[in-house]
């Protein structure tokens, strides 16, 4: 079985973002960029499945500007076998991403696609569900556990009310919650090895996908700042303030 994982290059989760002064977006030049955190869980899970003998190959896909290849290299250093890089503008929408992935799936014919549930830049939480529907494959969104059975998988989904267990026929698309696993760090020898692993390159045009934007970003602003409050000296003062000043207890 082949597993496809998707990895997105985003502003590192520890970086306090800066909004461009002209309000056209968020500064990404000269900013630390990393693999989208839930995508790391996706890579990790694919590798564990391969290591357990249930898959032969793990392919990491990234779409975007040239530097997205670095993110593929990270996945290869973690242990993925090869990469596919699709050159595109950085701001393509989830709908277009799902169409590009569908075109890749038709070539590669994986049986399982593992994705992060959400990218921490646009916070859309759409692509996995979109891909599942246009492929007409089974969907397991926001999963924190995956178990292999004979010809299907069982997944545990993290939902607002608690947990939901589903049986999914293969092929399937699953999207990972951060609780799925603890992603590994790439070791130095593996980072060296990753440099020799192949990355196929293609363009959106070669895949025949229309990625024209459907959503226009008019402006990006900073949210209203919260004023820093006061420090209280002890619990008694805190309770008094909450009772008489804020009047919330």
């Amino acid at each position, binding site marked *: 079985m082949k597993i496809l994982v998707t990895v997105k290059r985003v502003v590192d989760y520890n970086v306090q973002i800066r909004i461009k002064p002209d309000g056209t977006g968020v500064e990404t030049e000269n900013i630390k960029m990393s693999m989208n955190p839930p995508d790391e869980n996706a890579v990790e899970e694919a590798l564990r499945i391969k290591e357990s003998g249930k898959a032969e190959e793990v392919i990491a896909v990234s779409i975007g500007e040239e530097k997205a290849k670095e993110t593929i290299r990270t996945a290869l250093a973690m242990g993925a076998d090869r990469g596919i890089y699709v050159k595109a503008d950085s701001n393509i929408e989830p709908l277009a991403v799902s169409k590009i992935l569908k075109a890749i799936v038709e070539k590669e014919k994986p049986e399982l696609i593992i994705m992060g549930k959400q990218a*921490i830049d646009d*916070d859309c939480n759409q692509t996995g569900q979109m891909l599942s529907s246009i492929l007409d494959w089974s969907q397991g969104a926001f999963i924190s556990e995956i178990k292999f059975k004979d010809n299907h998988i069982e997944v545990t989904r993290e939902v607002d009310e608690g947990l939901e267990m589903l049986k999914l026929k293969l092929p399937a698309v699953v999207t990972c919650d951060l609780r799925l696993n603890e992603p590994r760090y790439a070791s130095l020898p593996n980072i060296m090895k990753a440099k020799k692993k192949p990355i196929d390159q293609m363009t959106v045009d070669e895949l025949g996908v229309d990625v024209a934007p*459907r959503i226009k970003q008019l402006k990006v602003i900073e949210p209203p700042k919260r004023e820093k409050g006061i420090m209280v000296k002890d619990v008694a003062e805190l309770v008094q303030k909450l009772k008489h000043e804020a009047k919330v207890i």
Partner: protein
Amino acid sequence: MSILLLAEHNNKNIMSSTLNSITAAKEINDDLHVLVVGYKNDSVAKDLSSIPLVKKVLQLDSSEYENQLAESVSPVIINIADQYSHILAPATTFGKNIMPRVAAILDISQVSDIVKIESGDTFIRPIYAGNALATIKSMDVKKIITIRPTSFDPAPTSGGNAAIEKITQLKNQTKSEFIRREESKSERPELSSARVVISGGRGLQSSENFSMINDLADKLNAAVGASRAAVDAGYVSNDYQVGQTGKVVVPDLYIAVGISGAIQHLAGMKESKVIVAINKDEEAPIFNIADYGLKADLFEALPKLSAELDKLNTIQK
């Protein structure tokens, strides 16, 4: 053209997210239809019909839809999409699971998690964990939108009398199958709609210690939340998680205990009206957004807080 909202419910009751979403929908268009898909869901359809802002209720009642799987609910919406200019759902795990499927099949770019409506095609939504607000315009003819419930007031629930129209659906063929659901049972208020929320972080150090948070919650009639660090460490289950990848809460009072204030946690609570932070590290970023900060060892502060609340409760009685 009318607009359609997919109702979140559990076949018995409407979820509060549906009421918030109705208020948002009304800002787009008065002619609001609400779709309820499920099994033995008459009480939900009836409750929806008595909401004054709802013009029509569409009810699909069939055993195949009992568990509202994304693969079964999305075709129901796609089937009736022609009649609507906007199709909406709450941006909860329920709506997030279903709506992108609808959008992709209809070839529409979905607008996720809106917090403000500027017009029928222009909306504001948080990006980068709420550290930026983007105003965006959808250029698709039809709009598919999910709504952040906590950004809109709940709609009034009585006084209306909307018609209930039963609908049917062709054979439901899903490739996934429901096994079971484990709902966290709690007598406390629901996290996303509670007036007071008290959350614990890594500072609690263990699930045993986390019970101190639960005790305080009972005294404050509060819901209990947690940072991702506390969830990852296994102190509590994931449905407690407040943050970018967890729940977004906007209570009147939010008490953060032993939480440093990572960007991703702040994304889920910084709109709270009053924020209290208790942390022993005075450099913790949580103090930058707290209205009241207390630099203290939580293991000393929490018992004191408990005692002070007891005093208060005695006086009030």
